[in-house]
């Protein structure tokens, strides 16, 4: 990477057989990141020390929300968003769902989990069943409370609003990839006096979560929260690798800005910019 950077020169940076342009830089960055993820997951799996993910302030909110629902004797609603199971946000959501389901099993609180995608429906059922098993309450798991409503965005939204009205959950947890349905859920939750915890990495919907939820996880925080709560080595390793990548990006921005100050044409920018 360093060789490529040093060799770069506008307009066609070349080093021996390497063509140091944006495509090569993206390829190198991808490989570097994949290696960091692999290394950190391997360390986490073998029980070796990796940097700790700090506890986010909003994480206690899950306990608080489920505690409130338990006190009121009303259910908890959980939505993983409307993306398929292949979305990284949905994958992160399942880590949090496992934690929420375990708490619900422990406090004997009903958990209603709704889905807008058939692939998340299957995985969610597995995650919740496993959580109840780990909490020592497999008998309390009710498959009827894991529901597929509709894969139409607003069909799903109207189904969730109906559940809010009829089954009156005391807590609403929405973590994952949300679009226009986000505000519908949150507004209905506020009207019902629910305690709400929400998080997404979809920038257009984040403002609604921040404005209406009692606790909001902002963008990357959902991945960190999932790793922190699940203690899953794969997730922990990935989040730490992402953090290292962020530090590298931070350093690149500092170096790039200094170079821009001294040079008319920034060679580093020339490599990175497509």
């Amino acid at each position, binding site marked *: 990477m360093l060789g490529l950077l040093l060799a770069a020169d506008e307009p066609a940076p070349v080093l021996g057989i390497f063509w140091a342009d*944006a495509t090569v830089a*993206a390829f190198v*960055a*991808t490989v570097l990141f994949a290696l960091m993820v692999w290394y950190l997951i391997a360390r986490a799996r073998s029980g070796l020390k990796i940097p*700790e*993910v*700090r506890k986010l302030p909003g994480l206690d909110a899950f306990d608080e929300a489920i505690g409130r629902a338990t006190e009121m004797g009303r259910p908890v609603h959980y939505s993983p968003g409307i993306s*398929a*199971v*292949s979305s*990284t946000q949905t*994958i992160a959501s399942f880590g949090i769902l496992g934690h929420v389901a375990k708490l619900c099993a422990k406090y004997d609180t009903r958990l209603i989990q709704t889905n807008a995608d*058939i*692939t998340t429906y*299957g*995985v969610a*059922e597995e995650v919740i069943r496993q959580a109840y098993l780990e909490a020592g309450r497999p008998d309390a798991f009710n498959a009827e409370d894991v529901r597929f*409503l*509709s*894969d*139409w965005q*607003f*069909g*799903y939204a*109207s*189904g969730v*609003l*109906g559940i809010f009205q*009829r089954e009156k959950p005391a807590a609403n947890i929405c973590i994952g990839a949300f679009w226009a349905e986000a*505000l519908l859920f949150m507004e209905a939750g506020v009207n019902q006096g629910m305690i709400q915890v929400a998080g997404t990495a979809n920038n*257009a919907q*984040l*403002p*609604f979560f*921040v404005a209406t939820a009692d606790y909001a996880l902002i*963008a*990357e*925080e959902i991945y*960190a929260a999932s790793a922190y709560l699940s203690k899953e080595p794969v997730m922990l390793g990935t*989040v730490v690798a992402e*953090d*290292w990548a*962020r*530090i590298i*990006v*931070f350093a*690149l*921005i*500092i170096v*790039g*800005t200094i*170079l*821009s*100050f001294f040079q008319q044409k*920034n060679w*580093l*920018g020339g490599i*990175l*910019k*497509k």
Partner: protein
Amino acid sequence: MQGFDWGTFVGVLFTIAVWTYLYKENPIWRVAEHIYIGLATAWSIGYYFYSYVKPTIMDDILTKHNWLYIVPVILGLMMYLRYFPSVAWLARYPMSFWVGYGAGYGLAFSFAPMLTWIAQTFVKLNSFNNIVLWLAVVTGLMYFFFTVNRENAVVKYGALVGRYFIMVGLGAAFGNTVLYRYNLFIDRARYVLGFLHLIK
């Protein structure tokens, strides 16, 4: 009733039925909700069958003999094994494949645009706009440091400033989206009022 626009009539009826939710949950809303979910699910089943299942099996496999297409068909069928307890574990394989595909695809195509964004922050700090842009990016990044000790003063105050920048950004996005929602509402209101001949 010849020439009467039944399609728009039903659309208006259901729009008003859904709007009754604004008052409170009621039987009219409930009828609209259940019909909507039922229709949506039925439409999806038909759509997926005629757009994916039938063309894949009838055209790609049986007519064009693209035998590789059998693999996704088998993976799809395996998802139903969760209903058979003795082999339910096999349903995890297509799910794992799907999760792996998602993570891999995300990783492969994230870096190229990201590097361009990084390069766009290499600005000369000689104007107010450039300074604000640069500060917002750098401090915003610091807000998302999860393994760096927050007791470090630079990181602590950098993250705090980043938090304010993020809130300003979210506020702007909030206003933008609310405006868009008003547009949607106005469009729907015109649809209803136009049908009732209350506006031209």
